[in-house]
């Protein structure tokens, strides 16, 4: 990782911060993170650098870095809304949805028009499977961030889950045509939306279009078990059984503890007369479920 030395020599902390900002705007988050780290060595109380450092750390999933920095930022400026929203993002990433909801509740109580908080609240609700309220939150977010592609994609995913596949399709198609989600900052979530779009196509029996979406997801996350599982489902539905088997077997290799691909493989093996392999997989799931059922309080 290279961070321009001349920035340090010529401009001190301000120059470092400006250079880091340029990297941040260019979506070079690892470079920017290093820039903000050096900035904070020179100017430890720079709220802007603290925020941006935490932002980059969250994007890079370095949650321990983000957490420390957010604590420092909160100590400097406890009411800073951006720091609180960054905290929510970190909490969501670590699965602390209860705490995230508490912070968001405070943010939205004090400013009901805070679009970024509505976006985060939508993501929180979506992650918990509450699609109706997530949709409402995303629509509030879009009022303050009209056309923001990631929010639109989440909205489309909610519509699909709520059974309005026509509206979901319209939104997904519009996003796909405009390539609005192709910015680097959306890479992480775009693959999820490609799967959601593939699900829509699958549910409509549009197999080739489903495979196109899965190709797009695979390009973003090669070897992703979720994509391989969906690919196997689509291929099986189209009667391409051997290809479905190959995809499902790759999915099992990629995520040996996950049940969905194993369950699908049982069916494929049974359909193709590979009863020994099917029985072995069934036994694996049976034992796993038996262990799970025997956990919990006696």
């Amino acid at each position, binding site marked *: 990782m290279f961070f321009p030395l001349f920035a340090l020599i010529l401009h001190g902390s301000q120059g470092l911060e400006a250079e880091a900002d340029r990297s941040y705007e260019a979506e070079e988050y690892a470079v920017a993170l290093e820039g903000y780290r050096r900035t904070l060595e020179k100017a430890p109380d720079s709220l802007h650098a603290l925020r941006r450092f935490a932002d980059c750390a969250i994007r890079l999933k370095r949650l321990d870095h983000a957490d420390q920095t957010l604590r420092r930022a909160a100590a400097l400026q406890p009411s800073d809304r951006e720091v609180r929203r960054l905290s929510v993002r970190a909490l969501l990433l670590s699965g602390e949805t209860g705490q995230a909801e508490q912070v968001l509740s405070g943010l939205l109580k004090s400013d009901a028009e805070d679009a970024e908080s509505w976006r985060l609240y939508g993501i929180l609700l979506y992650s918990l499977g509450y699609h109706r309220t997530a949709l409402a939150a995303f629509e509030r977010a879009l009022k303050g961030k009209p056309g923001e592609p990631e929010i639109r994609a989440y909205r489309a995913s909610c519509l699909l889950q709520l*059974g309005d596949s026509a509206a979901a399709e319209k939104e997904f198609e519009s996003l796909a045509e405009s390539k609005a989600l192709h910015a680097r900052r959306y890479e992480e979530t775009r693959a999820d939306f490609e799967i959601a779009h593939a699900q829509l196509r*699958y549910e409509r029996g549009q197999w080739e279009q489903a495979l196109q979406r899965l190709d797009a997801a695979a390009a973003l996350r090669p070897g992703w078990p979720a994509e391989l599982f969906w690919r196997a489902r689509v291929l099986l539905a189209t009667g391409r059984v051997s290809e479905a088997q190959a995809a499902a077997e790759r999915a099992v290799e990629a995520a040996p503890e996950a049940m969905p*691909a194993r369950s699908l493989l049982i069916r494929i093996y049974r*359909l193709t007369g590979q009863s020994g392999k099917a029985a072995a997989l069934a036994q694996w799931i049976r034992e796993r479920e038996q262990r799970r*059922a*025997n*956990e919990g*309080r006696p």
Partner: protein
Amino acid sequence: MKIAHLLLFVSAPVCLLAQIRFGDATARSGIDFTLRNGAKGGMHLVELMPGGVAAFDLDNDGCQDLFFANGAALPSLEKEGPEFWNRLYRNNCDGTFSDITQKAGVAGTGYSMGVAAADYDGDGYTDLFIAGVNRNQLLRNRGDRTFEDTTAKAGLAGHAPGHRKPWSIAAGWLDADLDGRPDLFVSNYVSWDPASEPKCRNSQGSFYCHPDQYRGLSHQIFRNAGSGKFVDLSAASGIAKYTGKGMGVAFADYDRDGRPDIFVGNDSMRNFLFRNAGDFRFDEVGLDAGASLGEHGRPIATMGVDFRDLDNDRRPDVVMTAMVNDAFLLLRNLGPPAFFEDFTIRSGLAAGTRQMTGWGVGAYDFDNDGRKDLFFANAHFPRLSLYLGVPAPQPAAVFRNTGQGRFENVSSAAGPALQASAHHRGAAFADFNNDGRIDVALSCIQSPARLLLNETPDAGGWIALDLRAGPSRREVWGAEVTATAAGMETQLNQVTTSVGYTSSSERFVRFGLGRARGVRVEVAWPGGAVEARELTTINKIVPWHSRSVGAKLPH
């Protein structure tokens, strides 16, 4: 081919498109039962789960009566007042019901959950088994509209020596060994004790813990040994080998080998399909047969189940209710080698039910057009309204079978009764007013039970079979019937009362006949004997006493 048979096949086409409708007849029926779960804010898991409804003819007067299982006080788990009594309503055959609970001696004890009806002793009167948290009860119908508690005498207290009584949710009767006597299957849930229950929270405060927080239980099967006695064969049969978190249970012969198999819905873990291997042995084949998981491969929170031929291909399929986002799974039985395939998406149920949380379910032909439709008793969990964006009480739903394996939600046009919300739970299906259209009785937590009468205009013709055999004309369990009428697909149905969630429905084998004027019915009796009849008079209940298998059955 006989002339009558020929006539059945030259009748006019029977295409029928009736709008299914239900009317709420609760007020005029006199049924005033409220299901009390004992909730006082303690968020005890048991509060979510009651309670079952049974439709059965207690006095053989030709009218279906109603029994409601009720909860108890918490944390005592005892029926500390009449508000917790189980209730029995006698159908007066005039649209009204009378509460005969006290006189009948069925108020019950403990925290009741599910109910299953059958004449276990072959005396001609239907008895009741009540599954509960801390007690199970077998109530023998004396034939004079009173019952006696025969639990201990029958050996059905429900727990092995030295073990705490398992929390039973539901039960069902099946003739597992084809000996003519109904055996008993009990679906057990989780290991739970109010004194050591874990405390769980969401951001709104205390909340019910997820089933993952509790250890599961194995299910139980009891062989009816005659003379009012049962033998616990849970271990010897292979049933107890598997730990589940049992909810609804239903029976059908999925592999067409002549023996009834058992489907058990489990909560938040894979479902079980126990294949009846004969000699009272069962193999759990859910995963092998594609019945344990939906095509998404993840366990769902299965609640109620029904196990019948939904697509008229003469193989029993499975439909089940579940929690919001799960969708209600529909598994079509395509026969060997892979048997069940998930048709939830292709049937229209995925999009139609993904936002529902369902409990009771029944696959009945509500418009008598020759295709079984689906009824769902819905309600979300309490305290989730803020997140779900809709209230916890929800309307029931009815989906019309449009053929080709597709179902359409027709609830919005099914009348005001289908728009009314409640914390629906159990659902029992029967023709309470003997008009040939299947009605529904629903239990609702903390609100009055509901009697919904089927008012579908222009419903088709129908036939219902009351199958009996043996010298004492005892009930026959698991017998399968096919019905073939002119211009219609051949239908398959079977004798069972185990339908949906914690509930028990009428025992008749029913068929909708559209505009057909006659029907050929073929009964496959347990043990393999087959009898056929041409029925030229329809729209009635046909008593059918087996000539060929009667001698084999016990008195």
